Structure formats: C-alpha cells, structure tokens
C-alpha cells in the first residue's frame, strides 16, 4: 500500500471545515436490530466524505474476506471483534465528523433490547436522537421503547428516520402510515415533536443527498436537518448552578473549581452554598487562566468568594431566586442499567453532580419484583445527607443522578429527578 507514504491532497477541500469557531451537535442513533442503523451511520459518514481512504480500504478488504461484493458500510462502525463476528452493534461508539456548517459528535448506540442501557447512555448527552424504523415493519415495540427513552431523557430534538424506503417502492402512503402511527405514541409520551424523514441508507436516499426516488417528500435530507437544528440554549435565562469539584488553595486564597452546570455568574453576585446554606458574594471569576466579569454554562472556571466559608467538593453554589430543593427524599424516573435487579430496601450510593451520598431504596414502581436490566420505572430514595436538587425537566445536569453499588462500584441505575406532584404518588 504505497499510498500510505504520501498525504495526497484532496481536490475538494472545503477550508471552512477547519474553522475552529463552528458549533457542535451531539446526537445519538437508536434502532432495532436489522433496521440498518450501522448502514445509515456508515452512509452518513461515507457520503459526507468523512471516511478516509485507509478506513474504506479496510472495510473493502474485510467485506471481500466475508465474500461480499460491495463494501459493507456497517463495518465502519462495528469496531469490536464480537460485533463484526455477529454483525450486530453491542456497545455505544462515538464518531466524529464535520461539514462546513457544523461539527458532529455521534453516539452510535445498539438497538437490541438487552443493550437498551447503552441507548440511555448515548441519549443522556445528546441534543438530537435519530429513531430508525424499517419501512416494512413500521413502529415496533423497540421503537416505542426508544421514543420513551428519548422522552424520559428529554432529548430536545427527535428524528424519525423511516429506512429501507427502496423496499416498499418509495411509496408515500407507506411513509405516512408509519409517521401517523409514531405520532400517536409520541403524543402519549409527551414528546415535544419530531421530524420524519424517509430514507434508504443502503441506496443513499435522503441521507446526505436528496432522493431522486421520492418527489412527494419536500423536507430536508437527514444531514441538512442535522446541520440546521438549533443547539444550546441561552444560559442567561437559567438559574445559576455551580457544583464544586475541587478546592485549589493558593497562598491565602481559595479558588473553587468546577464547571457551571447551568446559567451564568457575575462578579458581585450574591450566592448561597448548599447544603450548609452559607451566603457570600463573588469576588472573582477565572476562566482557565483569564479573569472575567461573567461566565456561562458549560464553562469550567474557578470562583473566589468574599467571605471565608467552609466549602468543599460536593457542595453546590447557586445564585438567583430559584433555589434548588434541599431534600433527603428523592423521587425520580429511572432506567435500570445493571444485570442484578434493584429492590426496595437496597442500600446504594447516589452520585449527584460532584456529591456522592448513601441512600436506601424506599419505593419502586416495580414493587416486590424489583427493577431489572433495561426496565424504566419510578423510584423513591431516602438519602443520608440532603441533596440540592432541580427537576430534570429544568436542568439535565443538576436533575440527573446515577446509583452505584457500594459493594463493587457498579453503575446500577440512571435517575431523572421529578419534584412534581405526580412524583409523590408513586
């Protein structure tokens, strides 16, 4: 392979791709086994020219070894030995690509029921989820599960990608029927809305390029939509939440280091430290070596306060009128992730922002049977120390937690705090 000795110039270089100031969309994929999800991701990467020569050569080589005539684009993303052997995606993989308009971080998650927890993992940081269905099968149980997870994790944007349109004759009525069916489920789940797109990942219809086979579809191709959905909100409208990660002592001064979870902070702002309730004002803000007057989520920064308070890792500094709820009774929607079930009475560790506390499971929707791997449900916890909680609906960072097994450190459950009335009636 002599080509490896030169970095042959690409003729269609778009120099805007190397602009460092473009924003980023983090998105995730979800689909049932054999819906063609890996093929869709492979097509997205391939047609957006994000697959480089050596990667494609490796796929062509592997495809030939398997007796296939055309390169199997799924092999671009199925990175583990076991995945390639079985032809299924087992674990979430992250992919990176860019266009002139935006950079993308893709969490490519498995569709199989037993790997639902990996979809939860991908959706937790995603601003958009693509739910893939096979046009021949329409909405199936896994589709409803994926929609439920997207709703539960409050992923801001949903795309319903109806794949394999080539196998249903590119018929509008097949597409419309599936969209209508999905809309019914979306309404039940309180999904904010979704964008349906008819595609054929295998052929390449409406993935990067508009399809020539579906005149009746007037919407964008998938990539056009990914390039244009709005990302990031306005942190100025949110309450300020600063979980303290680490205290940096330097001479006489103490710098509280952390990443602003939501909102903004200004020098001079009055602040409260939770759970102690101590109050002070911001004397100075440093954003990684630069002194600033104001900082925004999700910047990593250090704060100095005007008063000498006892502040340490696990505390939360907030400002503004909307204080978090300080409570030892945590009610939440959960997705159970571990193979061992979760039962009422179990002792667990709750990891919330930078704080880890002991807790006991007081109540579960699953009752005596317990929550099993990939189950969605509701939970009530009693914690040993109070936590400063927000509704997950208001803040993904300060409304989220994980449960950890104190015996072996395994991550057991993903939780989304619900402070509402409905939560009280588990």
């Amino acid at each position: 392979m002599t080509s490896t000795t030169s970095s042959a110039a690409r003729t269609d270089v778009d120099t805007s791709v190397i602009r460092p100031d473009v924003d980023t969309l983090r998105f995730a994929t979800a689909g049932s086994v054999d819906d063609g999800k890996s093929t869709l991701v492979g097509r997205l990467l391939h047609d957006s020219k994000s697959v480089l020569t050596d990667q494609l050569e490796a796929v062509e080589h592997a495809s030939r070894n398997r007796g296939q005539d055309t390169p199997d684009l799924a092999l671009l993303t199925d990175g583990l030995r076991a995945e390639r052997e079985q032809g299924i995606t087992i674990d979430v993989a992250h992919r990176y690509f860019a266009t002139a308009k935006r950079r993308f971080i893709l969490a490519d998650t498995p569709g199989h029921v037993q790997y639902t927890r990996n979809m939860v993992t991908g959706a937790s940081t995603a601003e958009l989820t693509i739910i893939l269905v096979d046009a021949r099968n329409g909405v199936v149980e896994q589709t409803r599960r994926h929609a439920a997870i997207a709703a539960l994790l409050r992923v801001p944007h949903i795309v319903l990608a109806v794949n394999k349109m080539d196998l249903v004759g590119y018929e509008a009525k097949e597409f419309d029927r599936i969209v209508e069916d999905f809309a019914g489920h979306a309404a039940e789940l309180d999904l904010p809305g979704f964008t349906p797109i008819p595609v054929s990942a295998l052929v390449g219809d409406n993935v990067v390029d508009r399809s020539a086979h579906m005149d009746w579809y007037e919407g964008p191709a998938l990539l056009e939509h990914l390039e244009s959905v709005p990302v990031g909100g306005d942190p100025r409208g949110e309450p300020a939440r600063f979980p303290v990660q680490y205290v940096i002592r330097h001479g006489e001064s103490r710098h509280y280091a952390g990443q602003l979870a939501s909102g903004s902070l200004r020098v001079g702002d009055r602040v409260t430290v939770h759970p102690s309730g101590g109050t002070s004002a911001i004397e100075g803000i440093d954003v990684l070596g630069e002194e600033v007057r104001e900082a925004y989520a999700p910047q990593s920064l250090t704060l100095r306060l005007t008063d000498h308070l006892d502040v340490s890792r696990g505390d939360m500094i907030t400002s503004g009128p909307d204080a978090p709820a300080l409570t030892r009774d945590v009610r939440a929607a959960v997705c159970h992730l571990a193979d061992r079930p979760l039962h009422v009475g179990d002792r667990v560790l709750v990891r919330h922002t930078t704080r880890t506390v002991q807790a006991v499971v007081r109540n579960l929707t699953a009752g005596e049977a317990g929550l099993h791997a990939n189950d969605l449900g509701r939970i009530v916890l009693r914690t040993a120390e109070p936590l400063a909680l927000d509704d997950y609906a208001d803040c993904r960072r300060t409304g989220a937690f994980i449960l950890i097994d104190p015996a072996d450190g395994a991550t057991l459950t993903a939780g989304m705090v619900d402070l509402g009335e409905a939560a009280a009636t588990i």
Partner: protein
Amino acid sequence: MSHLDTLESEAVHIFREVAGEFERPVVLFSGGKDSIVMLHLALKAFAPAAVPFSLLHVDTGHNFPEVLEYRDRTVKKHGLRLHVASVQDYIDRGTLKERPDGTRNPLQTLPLTEKIQAERFDAVFGGGRRDEEKARAKERVFSLRDEFSQWDPRRQRPELWNLYNGRHAAGEHVRVFPLSNWTELDVWQYIAREGIELPEIYFAHERDVFQRAGMWLTAGEWGGPKDGETIEKRQIRYRTVGDMSCTGAVDSDAVTLHQVITEIAASRLTERGATRADDKMSEAAMEDRKREGYF
C-alpha cells in the same frame, strides 16, 4: 461556546474530577502531541496552583531523541515528577523478548502495567482519542481496569451525562481519557490557538529514512535499514510520535502550524492509517492490545 472551548471545558472538568476522587493519579506522558495537550489542560485546570499529578513515560528504548529531550525539558520546566517504565530494562533482564519484526510497541504493556501496580496508581490519564481507531471509538472516558489492567469491552460501565464513576477496588485502577471527544484536527487547532510548543519532528524536515511495509521509517541503531532496504534523504514530518520501529513519517512541506492544519484537513488518510504499522497487524489489533492492558 465554540467547538474548541467546549472540548477544553469538558477536558478540564475530567481532570478536576480525578483530582477530587482519586488518591494517586498519574498522567501518561510520551512527549507526543496528545500528551502535551493533556499536560497543558492539566496546568490550566489547577492554576494558579501546581498540577497535583506526576507523569509516567513508557520508554520503548526506540524513542526519537528530539522527543526525549522535549520530555525532560518540559518536566523540569513545570517542576513535575517523571516516572519511567523502560522496555529496554525488561529485554535486558530477559523478561521480554525482542520480536522478529523489531517493533516494540506491543512490548510496552507489561512495563506499563507493572509500574502502575508497583506505584499503586489508581487513575492513569491517557491521551487516547476515540477518532483514532474503531476499538478506541468504544472506549469510555473513565475505563475501569482489573488487577491485570485488562479492558473488557463487553463489561464497561454505562457512562451518563457528565457523571463519571471512578469507584474501584484495591489493585484495580481507572484509565481516564480527557481527550476522548477530540479529533486530530481539534488537537492541532488547539495547539495553534494556545501557542503550545511541540517537538520539532512534527514539522517538515530532512531526515534519513527507508521504506518498510509501505512506510517511511527513521534509519537508526534500533534496527533499520536491513538487507534490501535503502536509505533516502526525504522532506518528511511525523503525524504521531511513538516507537521508531513502527511510526511512519509522511512526505510534507508543512513547517508552520497553519500549514500542518491545512495539510491534515486535506489528507485522505487517518492519522494511524498513515503512520502506524502496529494497527495493521490484524483487523482487531488495537482491541486485542487494549484487552491486555495497553493504553
């Protein structure tokens, strides 16, 4: 926030999480661009105080002299402590055997894992990026390793939001990858933005090289060229820095950061595909080495 600011903020958050949760963290530092960026981020994360970690270099015995010089100068400049795990020591003692192909990259695993155990490091920062390789794409930011430092891709902890779970038993450790979400281009653009100094071999220069298995390797005492291989003087640079026996150079005229960035943006080859022989050994070479404890 711009793309680079977001990545920087996320990486700093990861450094501080480890400082807050672990007893004995260490940063793998090779003098390569990814570890240089890691150190830069760590310096920013704990400013105005010093970085609360020591550094660890796995020295294959076949490192580029310019890179070792850079390594020692940097360690001294920041007043840091450097641990070295030496592959050559293991070969001299007879614990490791030189491979017939001469590459020492796979030999790094044992010195690395034994050093981790001997020093009781509980968190080990690596500069691995998920864009490098398809097995790396499956890697978590916090990756629990057992007492043998093994990675089991089917038993990884789910990783949600930015809640990293670093719980581990005595003897186990966690590999931490703050640059997980960075690409090669991000790393270069960040180096340019921050004005970070790099070893000279990353920029185009004339060097004696010879061709082996389609790659330009640096001629030297480590074992090249052999019969039938001839030395040529070429204008080259390196995209990655590793063991001289398996790290290939690319033909290049790029002598400035801007030229390097333009060249990478235009390249149709991945970083590892262009320059790493060890990844070409099999379809799952990286996965297999990671399972054994490689970084």
